[in-house]
């Protein structure tokens, strides 16, 4: 049909931006006109879109927002690059939309590849507008260089000529860098004042300087490389320092995190970031920690000045922390521990398996001016507070036998500005064995260290403060100092920043609480060890906490605990027959409950798990709830301690009551169905009655039998409903049956009538057969008669011929006689007449035969048709 071939061309393009928008919308893809427009403006932003594209639609709003803020300086042109009649589609070939191109006069296109968010776009446009920052004074220079992101400074003297040689190249290289480095991490500045340039030892106009914090800064080697825009840009990119890096995944398929995290353990810091903001106090604080961490070579020329600039810039205490700390450690290494105490650990204490003596120091330097530290005596209350929080943290020590000293830093629970250090060591194994064998009083470990300790009077296994004035010089372990730590530890961290406005989802994946409104989070991810640590979210993310986090990670026996992500969306429902377990409820449900526990490890996405749901529900309904828990845990959303992890799903574990540590696994090669699960549980549950019966046992028995009774009652209930269902089905079948019977009867009747009809038809057919036979007979007879007639006529013909011959012979005789007898002529004519009549008769008979065969033929063909 013709409708099949009906097609319809695509709809004509319409406005994508509103007509009142500051963005010029070339929705017919007029690329030529777009190029014309470019001549009128210094800075142009092209937004190439496809009207059907979701990402273009989402970005439209952002572009409009930027345009409304910058429309007086930048021309915004949107071009429909999809419509196939438009010039744009014909000339450009994009694999995705939208594409944003920027032009600075004739320089371009610079493609923007950053996040499709108005602030980021605006920031980038502004960078294109002013790729070079003018550095007018010494303080501005220091400001510029103190930034954690790499800075390139060019020195050009404008006194000599209006356009010093090389300046244009330098300017272009700044623009060029935006093409490569679309996040704009390398900043370009220009110095025109000779005196300012001297600060960074630039003497000649036209020299370019790359500032580095941890390594020596560089000057562009003009004599080796040509002074071109590309080269400068390349040189800066290759030699820049990456002390702390922003991670901004673009959303497409990418190996960014894979590549970065495979380099080693990484500290990911999530902070909300507005690229347009003038100041970023939190970011400054974090980058300062990063600078310290990477500062391996302390003989940096520019460093003290820069530090100074940083200090004077920041109004509050925040920035002075690391600084003060650093100086302190340099000048008075001992004074770091102005208030220390030796703590002797009781034997029952878990740390005591590895260490029996700890040195606890309270440090109040944080946030306070250094000179206040040298308070000669310690506040006893502070020490006790530190001790308390130390014991709260004790579980964080790994149980490793070691002779080394380990130090860990903890923020005090009581004061955000003080932290304490705990250094623990093992003192004399003989001593330990002596204690355990003789069970004598726990004594001060004089042998090893802390000779300042006086004898402990309490003498018992209560954690106690041993000495309030002791500090041990050799405890000044370098690992407690962040400065240059990255070079001293064998667990070097790479530091990364993520904008939590854009990438908070990664923080959530790592266990950031969803309820927090403050989107700040820090985690150390170790891909190789498949483990991550999270900075306590109850602490605010500030420099000192971050420092401690790094320090604690770096020590040999790290007190950090593997973070287990927990599914917060699960709430405990009493009515659920299958108990949902999470990371947080795992221990309580499985180990603390006085019941047998069957635990299913599952994941929602795993097809093999989901199809078992009904079996576990049936099982849970079957088992007596007062002695059994059927539980499950979604291991995609809930991390578990290593020993409870599983590598296949589903996995079914049974934790028998009273022998919880002896869990058994449901054998994998058996099909998971109700009878098998029951057998498995029965086999392993501790319901055996071998022990002699006491009163309690009797009670138990009674409870059990009560359970049995209620189970049976439930069964009866079930059977009853089953019976009623059967009745219903029976009725239904009955109805169907009677209907079928009626149908059968009807069919029977139909059959009868059909049979009758058949019989009459048979009769009729017999009659017809008879008539047919009769007719046939008649026809045969007719044929025979005709044959006879034919034979007769043939005889007649023969006779005729004979007669002719006879006549002829007679004629001959007569002729001869004629001459003799004339009067005999009349006699001769008579037999001639007779001859003629005879011949007509044979002709007629012949004609009749032909007619006959004709009728037979037509009769046959008509018979055919009736068939």
């Amino acid at each position: 049909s013709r409708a099949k071939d009906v097609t319809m061309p695509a709809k004509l393009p319409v406005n994508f931006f509103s007509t009142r928008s500051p963005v010029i919308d070339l929705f017919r893809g007029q690329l030529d006109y777009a190029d014309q427009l470019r001549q009128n403006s210094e800075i142009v932003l092209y937004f190439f879109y496809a009207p059907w594209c979701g990402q273009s639609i989402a970005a439209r709003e952002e572009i409009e927002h930027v345009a409304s803020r910058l429309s007086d300086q930048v021309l915004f042109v949107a071009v429909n690059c999809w419509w196939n009649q438009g010039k744009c589609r014909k000339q450009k070939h994009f694999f995705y939309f939208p594409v944003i191109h920027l032009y600075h006069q004739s320089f371009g296109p610079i493609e923007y590849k950053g996040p499709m968010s108005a602030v980021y776009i605006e920031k980038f446009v502004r960078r294109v507008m002013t790729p070079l920052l003018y550095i007018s004074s010494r303080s501005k220079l220091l400001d510029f260089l103190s930034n954690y992101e790499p800075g390139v400074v060019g020195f050009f003297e404008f006194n000599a000529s209006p356009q010093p040689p090389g300046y244009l190249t330098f300017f272009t290289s700044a623009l060029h860098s935006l093409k490569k480095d679309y996040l704009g991490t390398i900043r370009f500045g220009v110095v025109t004042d000779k005196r300012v340039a001297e600060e960074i030892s630039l003497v000649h106009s036209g020299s370019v300087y790359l500032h580095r914090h941890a390594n020596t800064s560089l000057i562009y080697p003009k004599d080796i490389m040509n002074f071109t825009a590309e080269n400068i840009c390349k040189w800066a990119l290759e030699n820049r320092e990456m002390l702390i890096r922003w991670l901004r995944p673009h959303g497409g398929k990418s190996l960014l995190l894979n590549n970065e995290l495979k380099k080693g353990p990484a500290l990911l810091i999530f902070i909300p970031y507005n690229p347009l903001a003038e100041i970023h106090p939190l970011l400054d604080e974090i980058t300062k920690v990063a600078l310290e961490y990477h500062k391996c070579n302390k003989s940096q020329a520019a460093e003290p000045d820069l530090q100074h600039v940083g200090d004077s810039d920041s109004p509050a205490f925040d920035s002075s922390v690391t600084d003060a700390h650093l100086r302190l450690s340099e000048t008075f290494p001992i004074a770091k521990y102005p208030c220390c105490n030796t703590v002797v650990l009781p034997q029952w204490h878990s740390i005591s398996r590895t260490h029996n003596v700890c040195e606890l120091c309270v440090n109040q330097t944080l946030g306070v001016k250094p000179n206040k530290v040298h308070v000669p005596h310690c506040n006893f209350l502070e020490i006790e507070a530190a001790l308390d929080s130390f014991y709260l943290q004790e579980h964080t020590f790994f149980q490793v036998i070691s002779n080394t000293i380990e130090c860990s830093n903890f923020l005090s629970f009581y004061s955000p500005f003080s932290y304490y250090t705990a250094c623990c060591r093992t003192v004399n194994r003989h001593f330990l064995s002596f204690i355990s064998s003789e069970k004598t009083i726990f004594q001060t470990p004089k042998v090893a260290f802390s000779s300042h300790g006086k004898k402990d009077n309490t003498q018992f296994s209560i954690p106690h403060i041993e000495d309030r004035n002791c500090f041990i010089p050799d405890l000044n372990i370098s690992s407690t100092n962040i400065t240059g730590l990255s070079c001293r530890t064998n667990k070097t961290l790479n530091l990364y920043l993520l904008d939590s406005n854009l990438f908070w989802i990664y923080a959530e994946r790592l266990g950031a609480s969803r309820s927090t409104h403050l989107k700040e989070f820090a985690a150390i991810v170790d891909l190789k060890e498949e483990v991550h640590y999270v900075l306590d979210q109850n602490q605010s993310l500030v420099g000192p906490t971050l420092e401690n986090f790094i320090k604690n990670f770096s020590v040999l026996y790290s007190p950090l605990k593997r973070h287990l992500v927990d599914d917060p969306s699960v709430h405990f429902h009493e009515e659920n027959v299958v108990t949902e377990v999470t990371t947080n409820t795992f221990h309580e449900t499985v180990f603390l409950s006085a019941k047998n526990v069957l635990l299913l490890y599952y994941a929602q996405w795993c097809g093999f798990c989901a199809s078992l749901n009904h079996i576990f529900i049936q099982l849970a309904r079957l088992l007596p709830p007062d002695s059994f828990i059927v539980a499950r845990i979604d291991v995609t959303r809930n991390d578990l301690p290593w020993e409870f992890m599983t590598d296949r799903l589903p996995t079914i574990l049974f934790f028998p009551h009273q022998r919880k540590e002896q869990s058994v696994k449901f054998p994998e090669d058996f099909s998971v169905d109700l009878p098998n699960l029951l057998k498995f549980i029965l086999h392993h549950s501790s319901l055996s009655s071998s022990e002699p019966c006491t009163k309690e046992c009797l009670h138990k028995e009674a409870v059990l039998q009560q359970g049995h009774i209620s189970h049976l009652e439930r069964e009866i209930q079930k059977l009853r409903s089953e019976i009623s269902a059967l009745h219903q089905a029976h009725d239904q079948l009955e109805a169907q049956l009677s209907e079928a019977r009626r149908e059968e009867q009807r069919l029977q009747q139909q059959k009868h009538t059909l049979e009758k009809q058949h019989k009459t038809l048979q009769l009729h057919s017999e009659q017809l057969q008879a008539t047919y036979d009769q007719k046939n007979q008649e026809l045969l007879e007719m044929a025979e008669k005709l044959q006879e007639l034919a034979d007769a006529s043939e005889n007649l013909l023969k006779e005729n011929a004979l007669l002719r011959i006879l006549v002829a012979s007679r004629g001959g005789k007569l002729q001869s006689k004629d001459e003799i007898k004339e009067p005999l002529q009349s006699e001769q004519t008579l037999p001639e007449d007779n001859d003629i009549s005879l011949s007509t008769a044979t002709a007629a008979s012949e004609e009749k035969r032909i007619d006959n065969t004709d009728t037979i033929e037509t009769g046959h063909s008509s018979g055919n048709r009736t068939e």
Partner: protein
Amino acid sequence: GAAMQRFLGPLLCLWALRLPAGTGTAARGLDVASYRERVRAMFYHAYEHYLESAFPYDELRPLTCDGQDTWGSFSLTLIDALDTLLILGNVSEFQRVVNVLQEGVDFDIDVNASVFETNIRVVGGLLSAHLLSRKAGVEVEAGWPCSGPLLRMAEEAARKLLPAFQTPTGMPYGTVNLLHGVNPGETPVTCTAGIGTFIVEFATLSHLTGDPVFEDVARKALKTLWKNRSDIGLVGNHIDVITAKWVAQDAGIGAGVDSYFEYLVKGAILLQDKELMSMFLEYNKAIKNYTKFDDWYLWVQMYKGTVSMPVFQSLEAYWPGLQSLIGDVDNAMRTFLNYYTVWKQFGGLPEFYNIPQGYTVDKREGYPLRPELIESAMYLYRATRDPTLLELGRDAVESIEKISKVDCGFATIKDLRDHRLDNRMESFFLAETIKYLYLLFDPDNFIHNDGSDFDVVVTPYGECVLNAGGYIFNTEAHPIDPAALHCCRKRKEEQWEVEDLMREFYSRKKTKKFTFNRAPDHSEGENAKDPEDASSQKAGEKSNSKKSSHSLLSCPSQSFNSKLAVLGQVFLDNT
């Protein structure tokens, strides 16, 4: 191997360059609820116009506003859209349509129908509607789910297909006349998917009705295909069902083969069948070895493994979803992200996409609003909750509305290069595309039930737990409740066994050592019939059990780095 390397050298480089840098994610999250409502509106726009202008024909012709019969003459769009109505929550319309179908659809018609399409659309649609009808408030009869009018209709339709399976190999013909059976002179060439896409519907039918014939023919066809795989473990595209000779020898995961692999996995899950799963895993190995390049799947010669077509087909986009069902989420996501770039280029997936050229293939530029990529997005979203997947949903809604919406419905895109439209709206648009889109935007839909909700139904065979989630979608997106398969004939025996065990439990006696019931192993009987194949299969099983100590019917746990594998980030294997 060398030839492939040469061929793929430039290809890989091209793709490395073409990654869509800059398509960053919007800072704000997607408004899921508003997109859900837009999908609902799309459904009704198409559905109401079908009822108005096309019913009782099979399909709507959206440009001419009329209807036509395409795959038979059974109001196909209505049957196909039935369960979508329930997923959208429209109970009353569901009930009305059930009545309309019972009255109006007749399979005693002299029509040549595709065995494959009739099975997946009609049998599958009726089965799922039957199983969902109680949830939809339809008054069900006492024997439900083991009996019911829709089940009888499904059974009737399936019986019409059985004559096609009467071949020497057990592999079915492609076409059958619903009245007269296989036409004399019917071509014996059937595509692989047309042979191996029955087990989900037919096994369900057999379990519900108690007649094993359906499951038996489906299994036999699957086994014949398995026996005829090439030495390197691949299957071709078309096979002669009489002689078992491969007619088209292109091996891949797309058109002509796709749902065969899909049904091996889904059959294994639905029936807890190790044999089906081991078949799939073997194929999966061969597919990875020979057809996978840079997370794309190409077409190769089934005997040699050489690349025959470097194209991506729209139909292949189901693969990531299938991978996520068996726990291969990382690979699934990587392939999905490749496919997504093609969508971003055109606003749809062309039937064929030439990977090295980065463009459509001649005569294969259409996009008939297929569901496969959205289907994968739905499965993957379940597994990862990655917002990128919602973004695909957003893009699909925007594209389909902008490009293919016309006054009378949604029209097939004839050519993705210029978005010219065709006068057709396939029934899978309402059955699948809309359904998966809606489910992507509706995480609380009953279909996503993780087992926290369930129904208890009393049948003459005992008590059943139903609707506990884990629905298996057939290849036309008709959900089957796996619990229903345990509800009918076999249930009684199991119940007695359970009852015995419970008695033992309460009497606190452990009399005998327990013997577990082995997983059903259907290979035993078949092996005896075919000694040659039996030996090879047993050898295969042995090596299997040696290599992997774990059960075949399980997924691997997700790796640590999967925590961070969102927003386009992928991780390479540590090996």
